[in-house]
Every structure is written in C-alpha cells, then in structure tokens.
C-alpha cells in the first residue's frame, strides 16, 4: 500500500465517523416527526378522557347512556344522550340505505360491464363527487333536496332527518363505489373464466362468484362509509336540524351528535362548565364509535388479503 492510498483510507475512515453521527441525528429527527401521530392519538384520548371523567362525576353513566332527554343548556337539565345517538343513527341508516345499493351497483357496473372509455369518464366523476366539501352538500340539501321533499310530502318539516340522510348518502356513495370497484377488480380474471366455462350467464358469474370473492373488500368499504356518515357534520347541521328528538319518522327535525357539537361551539360555552364538558363527552362517544368501525373494517380487509396468497 502506498502512502497515497493509506491517506485515502484514513480520510474515508474519518468521514465515516461524522457521517454516522449525522445519520443518527437525521434518523432521530424523522422518528420524532413520526411520533407526532402517536402524540396526536394520545392527546385525543387524554383530553376526551379527562373531561369525560369529570363529566361523569356530575352525571351518572346510567343517565347519560340510557336517558332519553337531552337538555344540557336550559333548566331543568337532562343529560340523556340517546336522542343524539338516535339522530345520528337515523341519518346514518338512511344514508346507508341509499349509498350501499347504489354504490355497489355502480361498482359492479364499473368492474364487470363498463368499457375502458366509460370507466375513464365515470371514475373521475366519482372522484369529483368525493372531493366536494361537505358544506356544499349542506347547501344542496337546503336549497334543492328539502324543497323537493316538501313537494312530495307536504307535511315534512323544514329541517328533517330525511334531507340529511339523502345528502349524506350522496356524499359517501363515491367512497363505496370506488373502494368496492377496487375490491371487485382485484378478483382474478381466471376465476370469472372458470365460471363462464361452466355455462353461466354474467348475472350468475357476477353475483355468485365475483362479489362473494371480493366480499371482504366490499364490506370493508361499507363500514368505512358508515363511519364517515356518522362523523359527518356540516350537511346534517344545516339540513337535519337542532332538535334532540327520538323521532319515529324521518320527517321531523332531529339533532345528530355532530350537529350538537357545532351548536355548542357556535354559542359561548363557559370553559369548565357542564355544558362545555358535554362537548367532550359527545365527541368521545363519537370517537369511540368511529374507531370501532374503522378497526373492524381494517380487520375485514386484512382477511381479504389472505384469500389470494
């Protein structure tokens, strides 16, 4: 080894030491950024938990979860959350009834019947529909859907659950269509061929082979859409009303959990007061429900990965 090469090796050894330090610093920096997401979740749990805990010092869980009157701001106060949950359920159920069949039918059309040209038109339209801000849907509900409904059912109230349900259904429709289409398109072509080779029509192949094969992905999309509908705020705030009410029809004004949260924050709830705390409890309930649905849909989706391994 000549002196020159030896020098070069020495130099490169020195560089190694300092670059290793730099690498470590950079990796730590990146890792810290990754921790932001964990901190976010911890913050959610702590904040919702803390206020919720102090809420439940004043209101028994039984009253909260089983009571049927929600009057947190006026005297006599009552903290039964069921009307809010019911309102959310009504709207979500109505939205699901609209979005699931239409979304699934669209997904089937896109993956089994549509030509490439049609797909290239419809898929961007679906993406557009999915990208429209929810407040626009609220506008649409008030200025188009509700007048339309009033024309058909003259007895319907201006603020009603049906209007909210319809518009939320339209909102989550593209989600179901796109995700289900992905799931159905992922079913291998050879499975369809095997079915057709047995003398089957397209209806039989689609409904008895393709959809069952892609069922996990399809169901995961339903759950995600429902979770999204539950968390939807602006459209229902504008369209469905602010009246906590266990209504048995879709025609009355109700209030969803999300709409209640908006109502409180538009007013001025004194910090620390019980009204302020209801914000956190209702939000906490919302968080838990959507978390369960999301985790469930992920578990179902994981099962779907296995089938083709």
């Amino acid at each position, binding site marked *: 080894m000549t002196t020159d090469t030896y020098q070069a090796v020495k130099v490169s050894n020195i560089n190694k030491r300092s670059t290793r330090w730099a690498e470590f610093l950079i*990796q730590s920096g990146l890792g810290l950024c990754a921790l932001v997401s964990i901190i976010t979740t911890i913050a959610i749990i702590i*904040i*919702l938990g803390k206020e919720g805990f102090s809420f439940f010092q004043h209101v028994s869980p039984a009253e909260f979860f089983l009571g049927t009157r929600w009057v947190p701001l006026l005297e006599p106060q009552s903290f039964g959350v069921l009307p809010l949950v019911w309102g959310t359920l009504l709207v979500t159920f109505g939205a699901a009834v609209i979005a699931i*069949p239409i979304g699934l039918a669209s997904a089937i059309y896109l993956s089994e019947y549509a030509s490439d040209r049609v797909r290239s038109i419809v898929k961007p339209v679906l993406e557009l*529909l999915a990208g429209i801000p929810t407040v626009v849907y609220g506008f649409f509900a008030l200025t188009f859907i509700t007048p339309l409904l009033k024309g058909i059912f003259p007895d319907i109230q201006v603020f009603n659950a049906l209007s909210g349900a319809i518009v939320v259904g339209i909102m989550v429709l593209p989600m179901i269509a796109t995700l289900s289409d992905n799931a159905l398109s992922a079913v291998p072509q050879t499975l369809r061929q095997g079915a057709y080779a047995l003398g089957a029509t397209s209806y039989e192949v689609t*409904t008895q082979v393709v959809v069952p094969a892609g069922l996990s992905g399809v169901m995961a999309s339903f759950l995600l859409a429902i979770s999204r509908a539950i968390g939807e705020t602006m459209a229902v705030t504008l369209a469905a009303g602010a009246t906590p009410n266990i209504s048995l029809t879709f025609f009355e004004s109700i209030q969803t959990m999300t709409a209640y949260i908006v109502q409180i*924050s538009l007013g001025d709830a004194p*910090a620390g007061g019980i009204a302020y705390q209801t914000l956190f409890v209702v939000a906490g309930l919302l968080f838990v429900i959507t978390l369960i649905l999301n985790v469930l849909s992920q578990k179902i989706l994981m099962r779907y990965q296995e089938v083709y391994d």
Partner: protein
Amino acid sequence: MSTPDKPAFQLDYGDLKRRHRKAKIFANFCATITWMGVALLAVLLAQVSIDGFKWLDWQFISSFPSRFPAKAGIASALVGTLWLISLIAIISIPIGVATALYLEEFNSKNRLNRLIELNISNLAGVPSIVYGIIGLAVFVRQLGLERSLLSGALTMSLLILPIIIIASREAIKTVPMSIRHAAFALGATRWQTTWAHVLPAASPGILTGVILALSRAIGETAPLIMIGGLTYVAFFPEGPMDSFTALPIQIFNWVARPQQEFHELAAGAIIVLLAVLLLMNAAAIVIRHKAEQKFK
C-alpha cells in the same frame, strides 16, 4: 382404478331464456344507476351555478361580508383561506413527508413502527370534528393561541397529516429497490440515498398526495368552527396570530340564514371554492402526467 360411468343425467335446458333475460336486466340496471350518479353531479353543479353566477363579480370578491346582501362579499374569507393553505402547507408537509420517509426508508419493522402504522390508519378515519375539539383544547386553550390562524392551521394540519403520510408512503413504495441498491453500492449512507435519489423519484406522487390533502383541508368547516373561526370578519388578517374567517365558514354562515339572497351569495362563494379546488386537482393531474412521461 375404474371410474364410474359418465353421468346420464339430463340438465334442465328449458330456462336458459329466462336466465339470459335476467342477466340483461341486471346489467342494464347497474348501468342506469351508475349514470344516475353522474347525472346527480350535473344537477348539483347546475343548482350551484344557477343560484350563484349572478353574484360573481369583482365587487363580490373584494367586499367584506355585510348584513346587506347587495354589499356582501368574500374578501376576508378568501384571504383567510389563502393564509390557511399557506400555513397548513408549511406545517404539515415537512412532518408528513418526514414521517413517511421514516416509515419506509428507516424502519426496522419493529413493534413501535407497526404501532405507528396502525395508529395512522386509525387517525385517517377520525371525524374532522374530533380534531376540532382537540384543536380547541390544546391550541386555543392550553397553548393560549386563541382563535388565531395559527390555531386553525395547526388543527387542520393534524387532520390532513394521515392523508399526506399515507399518500407519500405509496409514492415512496413505487421507487424501485434497484435505485437504492445502486446508491448503496457506491458507499452512500441511507440519508444520502434518500435525499438524492428516493425523494426526487417519489416527489410527483408525494406532490399529488399533498395537493389532494390540501384540497381536503380547504373544504373542511367543522374544525374551524370549533376553534373559533369567526363568521363576521370585516378585516384582513395580518399575521398568524390574528383571528380570521375562511370560505367554508362564510358559506356555512350564509346558507344558515333564511333569506334567499344569502343562499345565492353562498352559491357564489361555493363557485369560488370549487374553482380553487378544481385548480388544485387539475394541478395534481398535470403533475402526475408529467411524472409518468418522465419515467416512460
């Protein structure tokens, strides 16, 4: 091994016609429903346009909101939205991309990282209003930032962070391993490889994801209402600590009023909002296109 006789059963050939008819009806049904969805979009856009176009003029864009519909405009809302996009971008892009890089390039597949991944998927599904509440409790109250642009931007950044992370990860995953190996073989460190080779290759995908995340942020109303974006703002914010309003809040405020004119004003503001969104999405498509050309 003797196989049994070939079955002599006769299959029922009679109902083939019925089966074919069923198949045809089903196919047409699915097609009709899909096109109905497309028609729905057209109706929605038409509705907005009919109501809103007549209000669209320079006075509309340059005036502050007012009790009188004729004088009202979206100036403060538009400026507020622009401020927000800028702040949100500055905050969320570095953190989001850094997290994605960490998970894809530097991870060691240990339990902590799997936890982070799971966590991000869950955060992506949390309703936006919950983020609003966290923003209220942490940024407005705890950190004392009050109802400022900064509070709003921080809250919205938290909201879209999972979207940026997920989209960036997908983009980084598509960079072929061979590029990294080539760099390693030349003695480059992990970070050198990432900075000089992986990031540039993944940047179109990352950019597209960022733009889509920002579009989502622009349209969200609930969190901004929670942290106190005001609905009657007759001034321009001058710094991150000023109070503000934004387009979605203004729209919400106008839609919630009973008078017809305010609904039409809202429609006008919606057109502006949708125009901004369309521009951003068009930019995303152009970027995706140019990136695909580069790698052809």
